[in-house]
């Protein structure tokens, strides 16, 4: 993440390459999670972020380490983009003691508070209150921290989102709502579940809303940067609608998808709007790096993923006596 804010306009070489690397890390991490599932090495299921990398990375690059995020059931990308380490994430996915949650949370509950990640959430819309409360807290404590609330467009169905947006607007809280519109609520197209206009729902509460190409990391970064700096200045909440797409199924087990979306549609997104390819092309055009250097990044990331997964597979499970620890604090 940028340690201090970069002006939206110039996405220079450093930022572009960092974003590319982060997106690559998410993609490779998730592909490995899929392998672990298919190899029956991971308990339970996981919701992969592949295809949506530009959203998490574009947003988090516009944040400081001490800014907050809240995440979703599809949270690995947010977690990595906010600075989490792969080995502790893999450990969590495998239920190992070294995991971010000592194996108690799993894929849908990874939290990494040292990096401001207040946690993934398995309740759709379940973290909208948390993010808004973190923004309330930042304001009350007199810091200039900002909170970002990631949620899928399915969370637009949860009433609590409107309750907290109303208060965020009333009290000018430094929170940015980031709607990741990947067109599907599980197996149902969002047009069957979502009436009217998404941005207008935020605007009705007096929250400026902006639509963003969620496959263009630079556009996401710029839009987030505007909203975050506005919030930091005490000018209140913002709302982004990022159009994006998940390449895999709703979760790793969702392989036969023909009944709810076509292979064509999937192919079109992959071939025409892949966030990594789009950024890669731009970087090369700009001369920020050549294909070789980008290959090297991908290669190093692969090595990092392999080592982290390896480590996690070897790591010990928590001691059975852990089961009744941490029910209550202190």
């Amino acid at each position, binding site marked *: 993440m940028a340690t201090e804010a970069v002006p939206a306009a110039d996405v220079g070489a450093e930022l572009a390459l960092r974003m590319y690397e982060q997106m690559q890390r998410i993609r490779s991490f998730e592909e490995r999670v899929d392998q672990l599932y298919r190899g029956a090495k991971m*308990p339970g299921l996981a919701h992969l972020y592949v295809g949506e990398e530009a959203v998490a990375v574009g947003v988090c690059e516009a944040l400081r380490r001490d800014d907050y995020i809240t995440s979703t059931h599809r949270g690995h990308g947010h977690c990595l983009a906010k600075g989490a380490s792969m080995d502790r994430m893999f450990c969590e996915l495998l239920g190992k003691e070294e995991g971010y949650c000592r*194996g108690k949370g799993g894929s849908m*509950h990874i939290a990494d508070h040292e990096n401001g990640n207040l946690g993934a959430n*398995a309740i*759709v819309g*379940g973290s909208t209150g948390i993010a808004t409360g973190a923004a309330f807290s930042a304001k009350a404590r007199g810091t200039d921290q900002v909170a970002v609330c990631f949620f899928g467009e*399915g969370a637009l169905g949860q*009433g609590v989102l409107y309750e907290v947006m109303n208060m965020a607007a009333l009290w000018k809280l430094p929170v940015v709502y980031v709607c990741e519109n990947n067109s599907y609520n*599980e197996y149902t197209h969002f047009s069957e579940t979502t009436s009217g206009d998404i941005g207008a729902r935020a605007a009705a509460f007096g929250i400026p809303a902006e639509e963003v190409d969620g496959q263009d990391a630079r556009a996401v970064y710029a839009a987030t940067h505007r909203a975050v700096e506005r919030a930091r200045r005490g000018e209140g909440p913002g709302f982004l609608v990022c159009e994006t797409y998940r390449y895999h199924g709703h979760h790793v087990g969702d392989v036969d998808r023909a009944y*709810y979306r076509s292979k064509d549609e999937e192919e079109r997104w992959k071939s025409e709007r892949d966030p990594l390819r789009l950024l890669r092309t731009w970087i090369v055009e700009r001369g920020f790096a050549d294909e070789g250097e980008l290959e090297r990044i991908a290669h190093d990331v692969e090595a990092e993923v392999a080592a982290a997964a390896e480590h996690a597979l070897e790591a010990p499970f928590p001691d059975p006596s852990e089961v009744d620890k941490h029910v209550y604090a202190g």
Partner: protein
Amino acid sequence: MSTPAEVTVPKEHEGTREISLAQAVNEALAEELRRDPTVFLIGEDVAEAGTPFKVTSGLVEEFGTERVLDSPISEAGITGIGLGAAMTGMRPVVDIMFGDFLTLVMDQLANQAAKAHYMSGGRLKVPLTIRTTLGATRRSAAQHSQSLHAWVSHVPGLKVALPSTPYDAKGLLKTAIRDDSPVVFFEDKMMFAAKGPVPDGEYTIPFGVADVKREGEDVTIVATSSMVYVALEAADRLAAEGVSAEVVDPRTLVPLDRETLVASAKKTGRVIVVDEGHRSYGASAELAAAIGEEAFYWLDAPVRRAAAMDVPVPFSPVLEDQTVPTPDSVVELSLSLVGKA
């Protein structure tokens, strides 16, 4: 842990088929949709997807999207819409994908649906069925593994059913849909594959009638939902140890068949309640207290409870498997009760 799939319930009579609990639920829904035009299904991904558990597969194809509706992710909203529709001539079946999401519909259920009939002096009726799930050990962690049937059982005006076999599931669900009061119907996610005999013809099972799943003399094991399979497996092992266990399934928590529970307790003099809700302030407490009140003078030992540990359900398998009652823990408890441990 024992997954019900491993267990099969003995055939009861001729003209039956072995079908899974998921199929039994699907048949009940299809039959009621066919016989009553006011019945409809609403929920997240219940149509083409047939729910994540594939329980409603095929229904939208037969009954169309007017009667099998994919909804937005709005549990409170669809429950409220079901309630309003129920008050005005329909018999909605609202699908709440995971029992953990009951947290979102408690106002619609407890303050609205449960009370409308009473508050209106009997003038408004709410023939609403809420289908939802319970049960852990799916490695789904704390927000997708809860068994919250105790909450709704505590609300006068709601009826609560939690079948353990395909036969019971089909018969009780048909009864639920035809009931003029709101019913919350719990299906254990781990039981959907469990097979059992179901008669070919039409039948319903009345609420408030417990079922003795196995007769015995030495100890009574009162078990709910998938815990019935845990109890039956424990009973098998106890038999090997020379202990004869009776397994009683209340099938509905509201209304509750106290008579059958108490009669079994009086017969054996020793009782264990096995339920997958959290132990403290859970359904097992009511069952234990009710039996303790009415069978006290016949009991040779205190009523014991085997329930989910009082911890959020952890993800890691080495932790999660400790949190639920198992045949081992029930056998152990039983042996200690009969003084064999």
